[in-house]
């Protein structure tokens, strides 16, 4: 199986507005796939359909060789797709560590009885959650602030914490919605290293991003959305020269 995710003819309508029209794309295992396009092109809508927050009006997904049954977000997470949000959505009044521990929820099983009786299994599991969460915080570089409230972390750390929380669900596909938004050049460079490392460690990445330099330097392939349609797909360098893409970004009248 070379392809991890295959989206086939995804369509999404909001009333009369067609936000996505027959969007098809395939993401290969182990690649960093960029999804770019002007504001309002439908990138986040695609994310929301993929992660179960919206119901598609047409089309389906093939994930990891099997049809992806999208009924609720938590099932998508269980299937192995984890996401972050365009506007950071951390659990503000939990510590950084606890945020990541929540990410382990979907891969652990302790219930009320285990928690109340502190059974051996529940204790072992709790310890494993703890260790894994701390490792992931170190991995993204927020380890030193594990006991600080998520809301008190600096912006760049919050972005990285959100990635750590998503990684805690053991995803096969990590879907990042504008992870570099609002970051300065240094923070973006650190983020780029982190994403490359995550890919090297075996997680495929789907990336929505506005920072063209980051996308071009990081992604193996990119797809360009415009008004809900895919207008180009391919290696960053070739997409950059594509006439339709230039028209979409700079205005059609120029071409």
């Amino acid at each position: 199986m070379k392809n991890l995710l295959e989206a086939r003819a995804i369509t999404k309508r909001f009333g009369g507005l067609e936000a996505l029209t027959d969007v098809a794309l395939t993401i290969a295992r182990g690649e960093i796939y960029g999804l770019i396009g002007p504001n309002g092109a439908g990138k986040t809508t695609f994310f929301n359909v993929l992660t179960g927050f919206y119901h598609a009006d047409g089309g389906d997904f093939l994930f990891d060789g099997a049809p992806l049954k999208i009924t609720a977000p938590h099932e998508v997470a269980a299937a192995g797709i984890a996401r972050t949000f365009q506007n950071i959505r951390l659990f503000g009044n939990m510590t950084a560590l606890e945020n990541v521990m929540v990410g382990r929820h979907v891969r652990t099983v302790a219930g009320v009885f285990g928690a109340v009786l502190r059974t051996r299994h529940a204790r072992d599991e709790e310890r494993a959650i703890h260790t894994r969460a701390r490792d992931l915080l170190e991995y993204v570089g927020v380890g030193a602030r594990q006991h600080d409230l998520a809301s008190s972390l600096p912006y760049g750390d919050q972005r990285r914490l959100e990635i750590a929380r998503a990684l805690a669900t053991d995803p096969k596909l990590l879907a990042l919605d504008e992870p570099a938004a609002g970051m300065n050049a240094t923070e973006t460079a650190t983020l780029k290293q982190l994403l490359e490392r995550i890919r090297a460690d075996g997680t495929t990445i789907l990336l929505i991003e506005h920072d063209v330099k980051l996308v071009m330097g990081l992604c193996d392939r990119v797809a360009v959305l415009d008004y809900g349609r895919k207008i180009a797909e391919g290696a960053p360098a070739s997409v950059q020269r594509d006439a339709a893409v230039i028209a979409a970004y700079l205005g059609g009248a120029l071409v």
Partner: protein
Amino acid sequence: MNNLAGGHWARFRHDRRTLWAAYALIAFALVALPFVVDATLGRTWVRIIDVALLFTMLALGLNIVVGYAGLLDLGYVAFFAVGAYCYALLASPQHAIHAPLLVLLPLGALVAAGFGVLLGAPTLKLRGDYLAIVTLGFGEIIRIFLNNLNRPYNLTNGPQGITLVDPLHIGDFALSKTYTLGGLTFAPVHNYYFVFLACAVLIMLVSVRLEDSRIGRAWIAIREDETAARAMGINTRNIKLLAFAMGATFGGISGGLFAAFQGFISPESFTLLDSIMILCMVVLGGMGHVPGVVLGAILLTALPEALRYVGPLQSDWFGRVFIDPSDLRMLLFGLALVLMMLFRPAGLWPSKVRKRELST
């Protein structure tokens, strides 16, 4: 959340002997409490302590729903009512059934949990004000049902309520009798004190352990950001229903204990005002923080009782009563809430996290 406990406590905790000594001291104080109170303040106050323990259990139950999962429930007293009626109907002359204790309490808890899910299921998509209104309606529906279910078939005996409810008893050993042991007199209020204390401590333990677990983190995650919680793979429907069911279970158990303790229940004991009072205990004490909630429950039960002395005091000092204590009660209660919102918005004894949240 536990790893946020202060440094001095962590150091203190490492010293095992000090810790056990502290536990032993607290245990001794709790055992001695009813006898000391009986000898100094009188038996009425032992009874007030019993009621305070009942409210502690209720407040801890509501704390799961409101404090952890962040679901505003204004009809919580309904589960208290369900537990109480469950006990009373199956242990009174009303239907000439006298089921054993070991059936009654678990059954009450189970039925209340069922009602918790019944309330939770249709309200899953609601939050904040909307959820509050629906739960408020639910609480009233239960009370009105209990009030009207004396026709066509007399199930609940309507507004007259159910009398002669069996006390807690195993065989001939009934808590409603007075025993003497080693020179100490165990009046019914003393007996119930020890049972209520045991139940309250158990519920505290369950609360603390749940809070610091996979389930508790899922509840708090939902409170903090439901969308993100769903994206992290939390089945918010089940986890919310679990919160409703757990909270209702605690309510159902306290309800059964209440019915046995009073020997009489009627729909009048389960009004909206009671729901609001329990919510106030949670909010005043410190939402989501077990010690705070316990403090809130004890204060809000004991303070109104203490105000009763204001009447006699006035006639002693001035020869007449200027302010009726019952008027003063609501006045001071309102004043206390306003002052608290101004000066301690996170509650009297908030968890460290919430204190920081509100100070930044």
